[in-house]
Every structure is written in structure tokens, then in C-alpha cells.
């Protein structure tokens, strides 16, 4: 029997940062009704496993692109990077520019054709075709673990919002919100996730854009904000992207430019954007290769714009909030707010009734789609890359469809446990970056060599992947056991958590690539006949000559690339 007091928690906000009025609550409730209604409506379109796991491969470039970038723009992105901007300054915008744009364009122009032409269902599926079952199993298991852990982050973020804004009990929020997502994803699979992501993208921009607009007017524009930050933080550079990266001691993050370029810009970025199946799955659902490529490039453009609603609020908080925020480890102390709460706090500062409801709905939508994305990716990899090859090789399509639905729910339940792990980390984003370093960066080393070098052998793919994962864990454990080791791993004993992550990713990539290359020279490669459609030089690439110049992916990639260079120069 449910305790009636539990229901009161939903409608009382007296212990939170502020009270929501009836209109704010109506806005939130309308969103939940639409999301659940969409899930139920889309169930009729998920009749086969291909519909459920790949959305029938019928998405246009716009839908695929919005979904691609929204899968990345969850509550993790928004709250985590806003918190990181408060801690480290504009340097965090590297996550949106150098640590995203080159990798996304590389995915669109170079890697996507391989994924698309070989018609695989997943990145581990590509590894099976290229290297065999061993590499596929290792990558599938590690990816499944990562999605569950990432899903936990989204759940925790949601609970934070509920705690700060509404005063809900954090544990109660985790359980209630996860149940909603479970029902929703179970109904429509990837199609539900994609629809929710498009909706989320619109809501996030409409819900959060008020913060930078009002904040920049309050501080006297960008230059006024810079002046006030410099006055409030003397001796520290919070407002330059590259200027302070000549030494690890001259920026709040404690990172040298080599870490930003090689660790963040190459290892983490290329690993995440080109081999994290959660995002790649979205563009693989496009109706044809050109739509997939254009959708990806559209995603790159949208990604470049996101700092306006995430980084700028973090910077504004440095000068407009009347108190200092503290690490997550100090959460619960009376009267303090943590870094991770910066975005809800800024929302509360500028948004009145109605607008506040919209902003909170945007954050909830970010959580919902972030979690739904991870759960749907988990369901796909579990069913296609673990259950089907290892547990039940031959079964009907309906059986795998049913398995996908049930393991969506299982993924949600497993995520609940992992949500509690996040509470031990000083910042959500630090935890997420750490996971990418453990699981995604090693996979990138294996995938990229497999795509571009036909000599790479199946044994090398497997052992390179294993070596990468083990080295990532080893480096992390080394610093945990002996903090003095930070000066070797991150080239500075002053390195903060995020700097340690980017350097660890760099070492992991180097080790993964080295082991793969070395093992290749001592083992037997696959014959060319088995590599058609999988490797550069043995895959017929579609010619773009018949397409007008204006519609070619390369044209738009150049335009986005030029914008990326311009932004780096402007904020140098």
C-alpha cells in the first residue's frame, strides 16, 4: 500500500529553491503526457526488430541530425558542462568545438560510408565483420556497461533538478523518473527515442535561451561579462580558449595545450563521436547515406551553437550569483549549492512563472532523452551483439523484438543502481569523461585502424582493444593509489580531474594503437576478399559528382569547418 504522503511530494515545493505555480506544473505535466502518448502511438510502427532498433532506417537528414546532436545534448551535457564552465571558465567550450567539430566532420565524410555501406546494426557489429567475434564481444560488453553507467548519470541529473528546484527527495526522484522512461522506450524503441530527442532539442533551446539573453544584458554584454569575471577572479584566466594553455599552471583546469589537442580533441572526441554507438546509431537510422552525412554535418553546426546556452550561463554564474558554488562532495551542507546546480540556479534567477516551467521542462526533457538514448542503445547492443551471437543464435524476429523491449526495462532498472555511483564525483562531466576514456577511446583505436589499414589483423583488433581498456583502468588506478603519479600521467601535479581524464585518454589511445600495430605485424591478416565494404581502398565510395555542388556533404562540411576556425580565433 502506498503511503499517501508520497503523493504530496509531487505537489509541494516548499523545501526547494522556489515554488512552481500551477502553470509551471501544467507545462511539465503536458510534456509528460505528450512523451508517454508518443511512446504509445509509436508502438504500432515498431513491429519488427529493424523498426525497434533502427527506426526502420527511414529518417530524413533533419530528423537524423537533430536526433544525433540531441542524443549528446542531454542533461549530462547541459548541467555538467555549465558546472565545468563555472569551475574552469570558457576553456570548457573546447568540448563543443575542438573536441567535437573535427571529429563529427570526420565521421560524416570518412567513417559513415563504411558504417552505412556494410549495413551493420551497431559499432560492435562492424567490429565483428572486420575482426571477428572476439573484438565484437569485448566491445559490446564494455559498451553495454558504459551505457548503463551513463544512463545513471542522466537519472542522477534529473534527481538533482528535482531536489534543487522542487525540493523532491533525490532517491524518490530517481525511481519515479526511471519508471516513466522505461515505459516510454519499451513502447517505441529507437523511434520513440528519436522523436523525444527532436522534441527535446526544441524545448532545450526555447527553455534555456532566456538565461544568456537576460544574463548578458545584465552584465553589459560579452565584454562586460569578461571585465566582471577578470575583476572577480584576479590572476586566473577564465575567458580565453587558448591563451592560457601554454602552461598547465596558468589556467584553472591545470591542463597544457597538448592535453586539449591530443587528449580531448583527438582521443576523447574522435572516440566519442565516431565510435560511441549511442550517437552513431542516430545517423545510421537515416534513409540513405547522403541524408546520414548531411544530418551529421547539420549536427556539427548545431553543436557549435550550444555553448551559448550552456557555457555562457556557467560564466555568468561566476559574477551574478551572490554566493560561491561548491563541489558535489560538500552537497548537503546547509545553505550551500554545488557546481552541478548552476544551470537550475540561473534559471531560477531570470525566469518567472511559465518561463520557469518551460526551462525546467527543457532540463527534464534533456534527462529523458539522455536516458532513453542510452537505454535504446543498450537494448540494441545487448540483443544484436550479446544475446543473439552468444546466447540464442536462432530465433524469430518477434523473439528478438520482445527481447529488445524487455531489456529496455532491464537497462532502466540497472541504471538506477549506477545513479548512486555518480554521487561520489565532484562533477557529473568528470565522471562521464572518465567512462569515455575507459570504454570508448580504446574502441576508436581499433575501429579506425580497421577502417583505414587493411593489413590490421583480427588478433590485433582484439588485443589492441583489450590493451586499451586495461591501460585506461591501470592509469586511473595508478593515480588513485598514488596521487603523485598525476605528474607523470597528466604532466602536472596541478592537473584537475578533467585534465587527468584528457591525458589518460591520450595515453590509452597511444597504447591501443601501438598494441594493434605491433600485433598486426606478427599475425595473419584477412584476405582482401573478406574486407570488401569494410576497409578504405576496398570499399566503393559513392561518387558525389552527380549531385549539385550546393547539396554535397563536402560543401557543407567546409562551411561548418570555417565557422569552427572563426570561433577559435574570436575567443582565442
Amino acid at each position, binding site marked *: 500500500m502506498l503511503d499517501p504522503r508520497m503523493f504530496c511530494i509531487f505537489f509541494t515545493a516548499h523545501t526547494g529553491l522556489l515554488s512552481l505555480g500551477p502553470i509551471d506544473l501544467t*507545462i511539465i505535466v503536458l510534456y509528460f503526457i505528450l512523451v508517454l502518448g508518443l511512446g504509445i502511438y509509436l508502438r504500432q510502427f515498431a513491429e519488427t526488430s529493424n523498426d525497434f532498433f533502427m527506426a526502420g532506417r527511414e529518417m530524413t537528414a533533419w530528423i537524423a541530425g537533430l536526433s544525433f546532436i540531441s542524443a549528446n545534448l542531454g542533461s549530462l551535457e547541459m548541467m555538467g558542462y555549465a558546472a565545468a564552465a563555472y569551475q574552469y571558465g570558457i576553456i570548457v567550450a573546447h568540448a563543443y568545438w575542438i573536441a567535437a567539430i573535427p571529429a563529427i566532420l570526420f565521421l560524416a565524410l570518412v567513417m559513415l560510408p563504411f558504417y552505412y555501406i556494410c549495413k551493420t546494426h551497431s559499432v560492435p557489429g562492424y567490429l565483428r565483420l572486420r575482426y571477428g567475434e572476439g573484438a565484437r564481444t569485448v566491445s559490446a560488453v564494455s559498451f553495454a556497461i558504459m551505457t548503463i553507467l551513463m544512463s545513471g548519470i542522466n537519472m542522477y541529473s534529473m534527481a538533482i533538478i528535482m531536489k534543487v528546484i522542487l525540493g523532491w527527495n533525490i532517491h524518490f526522484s530517481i525511481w519515479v523518473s526511471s519508471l516513466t522512461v522505461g515505459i516510454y522506450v519499451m513502447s517505441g524503441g529507437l523511434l520513440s527515442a528519436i522523436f523525444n530527442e527532436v*522534441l527535446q532539442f526544441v524545448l532545450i533551446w526555447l527553455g534555456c535561451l532566456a538565461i544568456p539573453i537576460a544574463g548578458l544584458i545584465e552584465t553589459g554584454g560579452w565584454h562586460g561579462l569578461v571585465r566582471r569575471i577578470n575583476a572577480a577572479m584576479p590572476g586566473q584566466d577564465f575567458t580565453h580558449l587558448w591563451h592560457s594553455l601554454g602552461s598547465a599552471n596558468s589556467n584553472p583546469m591545470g591542463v597544457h595545450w597538448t592535453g586539449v589537442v591530443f587528449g580531448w580533441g583527438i582521443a576523447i572526441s574522435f572516440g566519442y563521436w565516431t565510435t560511441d554507438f549511442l550517437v552513431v546509431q542516430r545517423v545510421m537510422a537515416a534513409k540513405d547515406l547522403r541524408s546520414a552525412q548531411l544530418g551529421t554535418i547539420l549536427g556539427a553546426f548545431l553543436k557549435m551553437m550550444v555553448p551559448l546556452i550552456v557555457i555562457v550561463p556557467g560564466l555568468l554564474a561566476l559574477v551574478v550569483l551572490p554566493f560561491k558554488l561548491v563541489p558535489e562532495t560538500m552537497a548537503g551542507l546547509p545553505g550551500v549549492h554545488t557546481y552541478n546546480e548552476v544551470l537550475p540556479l540561473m534559471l531560477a534567477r531570470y525566469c518567472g512563472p511559465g518561463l520557469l516551467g518551460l526551462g525546467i521542462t527543457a532540463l527534464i526533457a534533456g534527462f529523458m532523452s539522455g536516458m532513453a538514448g542510452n537505454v535504446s542503445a543498450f537494448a540494441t547492443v545487448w540483443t544484436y551483439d550479446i544475446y543473439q551471437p552468444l546466447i540464442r543464435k536462432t530465433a524469430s524476429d518477434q523473439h528478438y523484438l520482445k527481447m529488445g523491449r524487455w531489456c529496455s526495462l532491464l537497462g532502466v532498472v540497472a541504471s538506477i543502481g549506477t545513479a548512486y555511483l555518480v554521487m561520489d564525483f565532484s562533477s557529473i562531466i568528470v565522471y562521464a569523461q572518465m567512462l569515455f576514456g575507459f570504454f570508448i577511446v580504446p574502441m576508436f583505436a581499433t575501429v579506425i585502424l580497421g577502417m583505414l589499414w587493411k593489413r590490421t589483423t583480427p588478433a590485433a583488433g582484439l588485443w589492441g582493444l583489450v590493451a586499451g581498456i586495461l591501460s585506461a583502468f591501470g592509469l586511473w588506478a595508478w593515480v588513485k593509489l598514488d596521487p603523485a603519479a598525476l605528474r607523470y600521467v597528466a604532466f602536472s601535479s596541478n592537473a584537475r580531474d578533467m585534465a587527468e581524464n584528457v591525458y589518460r585518454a591520450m595515453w590509452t589511445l597511444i597504447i591501443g594503437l601501438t598494441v594493434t600495430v605491433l600485433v598486426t605485424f606478427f599475425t595473419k591478416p584477412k584476405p582482401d576478399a573478406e574486407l570488401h565494404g569494410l576497409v578504405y581502398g576496398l570499399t566503393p565510395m559513392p561518387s558525389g559528382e552527380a549531385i549539385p555542388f550546393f547539396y554535397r556533404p563536402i560543401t557543407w562540411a567546409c562551411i561548418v569547418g570555417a565557422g569552427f576556425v572563426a570561433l577559435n580565433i574570436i575567443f582565442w
Partner: protein
Amino acid sequence: MRQMIPIWFFVGSLLTAYGVLILIAAIQGEASSANATLAMGNLHLQFWWAGALLILGPVWMIRYYPGHKKHN
């Protein structure tokens, strides 16, 4: 296979409803001076947002109304 209603129709419907609700909240806030306590309350952001939503939402709703035209 059945024709799927475009996602943009759902988005437009939701934004229209939000526009109406935010407009009501804005009028209530002005009447009761509740918005005076907000930072930068003089910008009247709610009215601007309600206006934007009430333009964007109906445009998407009409453009992607089921059966209006073949869309995805």
C-alpha cells in the same frame, strides 16, 4: 504501412499550448507584480517568449497537419 504523423506536428501543438500558458502567466505576473522580484524582470521575457511560441507553434502545426502534405 500506416502514415506516421510528423514529429513537427506534435512539437507545434506543444509549443502552441505552452505559448498560451506562458502568456497567461505573464499577464498574471504583471497584474500581481510577482515578476518584480526577478533579476532583469524589466525585460518582460515571458511576453517575448509567449509571442515567439504563439508564432512558431501554429506555423508548425499547420505546415505538418496530418494529411496536409507528405512529410517525415
